[in-house]
């Protein structure tokens, strides 16, 4: 199936054009090197300042394992929901034309630029015990959303879903509509041409989108602490545990940060081999 995309691959760019004049290259190297340093230095510092002899002791702290478990559980749930709900949305947006689609796209971009704490306040206004949706929910069924793992997932979905949808929409747009037309002329229903033609072609984009969404969900802090609160084992995700540990024992926070770094790198490495280039 993926072979079908081959004829559409971009022409290889002439190698000579990339090799710009030496001076230009030097002018680019300095800012590029600085960019690398700005990203790499803090990560390196984390490794240098870690108390390697006690990392395992720190990770054995009763608050750490539940935090990592909760983070993995909620981020996985978030990604699954983002894929299930976000893929159809991305498809509709990719094939939609006109005003409404543009507005929906703009709406989805808002959580990308919104400070996460503001997102947390917005989530409270919607799902809180006195919220627009949460209020009636609490009145009718006694269901309280904040301070539960469900709230953590809602917060993560709010910030991560847009990443997924926008990445997948881009991938789906690049699927040539002629493939669907051909499928249709061969008698495939719209659903069948979506599920058998368009969807498989978009899988690499979906994997990249899922990885982005997962990473964003894993790092979620502001919306979670504002909306879901901070309680060990229930709503205290790994980033929240790092923040709280920093006040009690900074070295423990460094150890926990290392664990998160390792988990992130492992997941990205696994994805890279398979789908993400």
């Amino acid at each position: 199936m993926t072979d079908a995309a081959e004829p559409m691959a971009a022409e290889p760019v002439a190698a000579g054009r990339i090799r710009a004049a030496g001076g230009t290259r030097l002018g680019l190297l300095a800012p590029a090197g600085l960019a690398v340093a700005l990203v790499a230095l803090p990560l390196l510092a984390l490794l240098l300042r870690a108390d390697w002899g006690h990392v395992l002791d720190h990770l054995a702290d009763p608050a750490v394992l539940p935090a990592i478990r909760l983070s993995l559980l909620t981020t996985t749930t978030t990604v699954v929901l983002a894929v299930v709900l976000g893929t159809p949305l991305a498809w509709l947006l990719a094939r939609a034309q006109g005003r409404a689609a543009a507005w929906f796209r703009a709406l989805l971009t808002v959580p990308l630029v919104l400070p996460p704490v503001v997102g947390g306040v917005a989530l409270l206004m919607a799902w809180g015990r006195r919220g627009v949706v949460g209020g009636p929910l609490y009145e009718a069924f006694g269901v309280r959303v904040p301070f539960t793992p469900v709230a953590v997932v809602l917060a993560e979905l709010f910030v991560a879903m847009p990443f997924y949808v926008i990445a997948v929409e881009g991938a789906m747009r690049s699927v040539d509509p002629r493939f669907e037309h051909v499928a249709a002329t061969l008698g495939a229903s719209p659903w069948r041409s979506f599920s058998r033609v368009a969807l498989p072609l978009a899988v690499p984009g979906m994997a990249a989108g899922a990885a982005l969404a997962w990473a964003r969900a894993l790092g979620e802090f502001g919306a979670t602490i504002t909306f879901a609160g901070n309680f060990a084992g229930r709503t205290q995700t790994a980033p929240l545990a790092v923040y709280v540990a920093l006040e009690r024992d900074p070295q423990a926070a460094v150890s926990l940060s290392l664990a998160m770094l390792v988990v992130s790198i492992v997941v990205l490495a696994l994805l890279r081999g398979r789908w993400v280039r």
Partner: protein
Amino acid sequence: MTRLRARAASRLRGGVVATLLLATAVTGGCTTESRLTAGGAPQRTSTVTVLAAASLTDPLTSLARQYERAHDGVTVALSFGSSTTLAQQVAEGAPADVVAFAGTPALDQLPKDATDQGGRATIARNTMEIATPPDNPGGVRSLADLARPDLDVVLCASTVPCGKAADMVLSRAGITPHVVSREVDVKATLAKVRLGEADAAVVYHSDVVSAGDTVKGVVIPTAQNTTLDYPLVWLNTKPDTTGFAELVRGTEGRAALTRAGFLAP
């Protein structure tokens, strides 16, 4: 063609996001250092950086504005957070002229030589109190009510002074409340009650006072309660550092702190 356009569009979108991020970073990082008087001549400008416990937000903000009004060209830059975080920030080298903590344990986290250049004084005391939403939906009347499993109770994190004090009060009374969240500082804890998301929180008496009628206070009897001293530390002897410290320690400072619900030291 559609493919190319889609790519360009997604690139553009990325660019817009990056630009927005950069713009926030740049504007957020700027502070006005030089001010001009009406005549156009530059005058003495100076900034006093004050790091203070979240519970001091209201009185110190009004005292800072008062100091700025009385001293043209002087800016009092305030930052509020949990005392634990602030002490750590100072220890890590965060610029600060004056710090004020809830409780004395945070003093131990300051560098040993922190007060060598300046000095310290106790500016206020505080006790703990139960805060509920104004309509008190949980019907909280005493500390013992917090043990009810149907109540959602919010406390400060056990690492920050208000959380430690709340834990002490509760454990001395032999009460295990149904805690749904442990917030990073006292204002965040109170916010959950003000929003009606929690039925009760154990916070400082001063926070109940400054929250006005957005929360209802339920007094904890002295026998079960605890008292925290609020130390003020000035880290140098620059004129505006000691000037602001004196304002906080003086009669006007005392009045502002009392109005905000603090007890005299």
